[in-house]
């Protein structure tokens, strides 16, 4: 190593040189003691590389120490700083300020939605954790015979749950979940992504139990497919896709009694029966004939506007035999394969 004698080597030149900019933020405040909310505007000088979180820190350190928000890792892995930036949930630490400053735009920062506010930007995550716990979020190998070494898992099987294991439980997906706004008991995108992480795990043996529970009220068929969760997720988990995968697993295991599953089945059947959807079958086959009869006044309204296609001459696409053959081919293919990948006991393989 080169000999160094210079004492000036203890400090770094230009360590703190940084280009600065001035930014204005409109921040939603809530005081739990007076139970009043308001908006405050703050203008702070921050480095050009600053995130929304850095801007909040600048406010707290130099303007107003009463401002409360959660933070920790500031590198988008701990999931503490989920909040709404201009109405959309995001990690404050992963949202750069520069684009807003350049556009001359004053951002509005407010707490995440679908969760009660505790103070300023801090929400009560208890309902969120409760839903995570409700999906039995741990591996169940139901096995007295745990191997001495690791379970053997095919790398491809491991990849199946790669996206879901990226989840940092920040709650951004839940913030704008439209179904949860309407049904606060809906398990929601984060818990369901977590559920798939175990349903899709080759080592887990509790699949059927898990799927049975998820097919109930407030479960997977509550999802309205608004795709806000995929849009908001800062970690590319795509929770809606995980919910869809749970649907597919439910079908594989024969859980098709939920109205949501029945609804989906009409679509599947329509394609190989005629091509387009058989709209007139949708209502009775989804909600059952009894409920459909109860809904007759509603159906008459639709009929009056010409919205009930003739059930006796359903749509028939040209060459639809291709689709029928395709359906049969894929069903046969699926039958020939194991329903899911499973982990193997190393002793059974190598005897080590």
């Amino acid at each position, binding site marked *: 190593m080169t000999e160094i004698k210079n004492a000036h080597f203890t400090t770094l030149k230009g360590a703190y040189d940084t280009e600065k900019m001035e930014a204005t933020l409109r921040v939603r405040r809530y005081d739990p003691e007076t139970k009043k909310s308001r908006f405050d505007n703050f203008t702070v000088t921050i480095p050009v590389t600053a995130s929304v979180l850095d801007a909040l820190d600048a406010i707290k350190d130099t303007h107003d120490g009463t401002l409360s928000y959660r933070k920790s890792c500031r590198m988008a892995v701990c999931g503490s700083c989920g909040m709404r930036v201009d109405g959309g949930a995001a990690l404050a630490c992963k949202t750069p300020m520069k684009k807003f400053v350049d556009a001359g735009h004053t951002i509005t920062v407010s707490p995440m939605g679908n969760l009660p506010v505790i103070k300023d930007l801090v929400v009560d995550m208890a309902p969120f954790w409760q839903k995570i716990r409700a999906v039995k979020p741990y591996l169940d190998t139901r096995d007295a015979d745990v191997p001495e070494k690791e379970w053997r898992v095919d790398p491809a099987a491991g990849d199946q749950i790669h996206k879901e294991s990226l989840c940092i439980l920040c709650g951004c997906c839940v913030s704008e979940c439209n179904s949860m706004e309407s049904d606060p008991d809906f398990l929601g995108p984060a818990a369901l992504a977590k559920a798939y992480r175990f349903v899709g795990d080759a080592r887990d043996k509790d699949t059927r139990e898990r799927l049975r529970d998820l097919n109930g009220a407030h479960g997977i068929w509550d999802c309205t497919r*608004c795709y806000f969760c995929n*849009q908001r997720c800062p970690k590319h988990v795509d929770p809606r896709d995980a919910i869809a995968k749970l649907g597919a697993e439910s079908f594989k295991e024969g859980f098709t009694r939920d109205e949501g599953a029945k609804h989906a089945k009409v679509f*599947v059947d*329509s394609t190989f029966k005629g091509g387009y959807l058989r709209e007139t079958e949708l209502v009775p086959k989804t909600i059952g004939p009894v409920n459909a009869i109860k809904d007759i006044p509603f159906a008459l*309204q639709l009929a009056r*506007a010409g919205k009930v*296609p003739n059930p006796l001459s359903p*749509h028939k696409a*040209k060459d639809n035999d291709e689709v029928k*053959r395709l359906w049969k081919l894929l069903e046969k293919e699926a039958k020939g394969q194991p329903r899911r990948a499973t982990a193997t006991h190393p002793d059974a393989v190598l005897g080590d």
Partner: protein
Amino acid sequence: MQDRYAYYPGCLASLSQKELDSSTRAIAKKLEIELVEMPSVTCCGAGDIHEAKPDYYLHISARILGQAEQMGCETILTICNVCTLNLRQANKALQEDKDVLNRVNDNLKQVGAATYQGGVDVRHLLWEVSAGEGYDRFKSIAVKSLEGLKVAPFYGCQILRPAKILGFEDSDRPESLERLIKACGAEPIDYPAKVKCCGFPIVLAREDVALGELVQPLQQATEAGADVIVTPCPLCHLSLDAWQRKAGAFSGNDYQIPILHLAQLLGAAAGIEESELKFKRHVTRLSTEVKAKLQVPSVVGTQA
């Protein structure tokens, strides 16, 4: 905008929402674009097949895309959010992974169906007429100014999110519908729920949850003083229109707001006649006042 599209109206526009198909064909004629029929296509799956049988969904999507390709069309024109997302999502999966594409094609070949090489784009009518040359073409045919008509745009979900599959515009602050409403000479009304869900996908399976969602745009658009709501999606339309009375009963309100398909609004501004726009096929009828603002002759749809 192109001169020739493979036209994929999807199920609803071919069945209960025939007025959308009819309006679209009429406006396409005015815009001088050729809509090539796709007689052997199936349903896109509406997200339901994607959820129930993902592999089957991928195959029927590839078959639809492949048919367009073999017809020599570069682009499939859709008029439904759900078709747009489902076809684009499958398209992305097929284009990004050659192994998947090859496997799907092998199966399609086995059953004698069209295979797909990956060269087709899927675009919604809204995207084609709200920007670029399509917008200019529309401006030039929008001869009737719908002045005084207050229009609440309702985007629906699956034309905005997920942006990595759709990505036409800022999914939180879209502007395309507003741009077109202005081009029609009407006034766009702003309200927060315009980018939210209408509840349609679960309106049969979870009616209460869906109605809870549906109430939001109806309530907000009404409060903001909108005469009509316009939407680019026939599913949102069905939800907002046909379930409007149920949403009213659910929330203790009496909503009376007519819902227009995008093609109907464009058609009205282009002077297309009621016989093609077929407003009377709506459950929530147009009031005389709104009809006047839409400049539709008052002989049709006498029920207010």
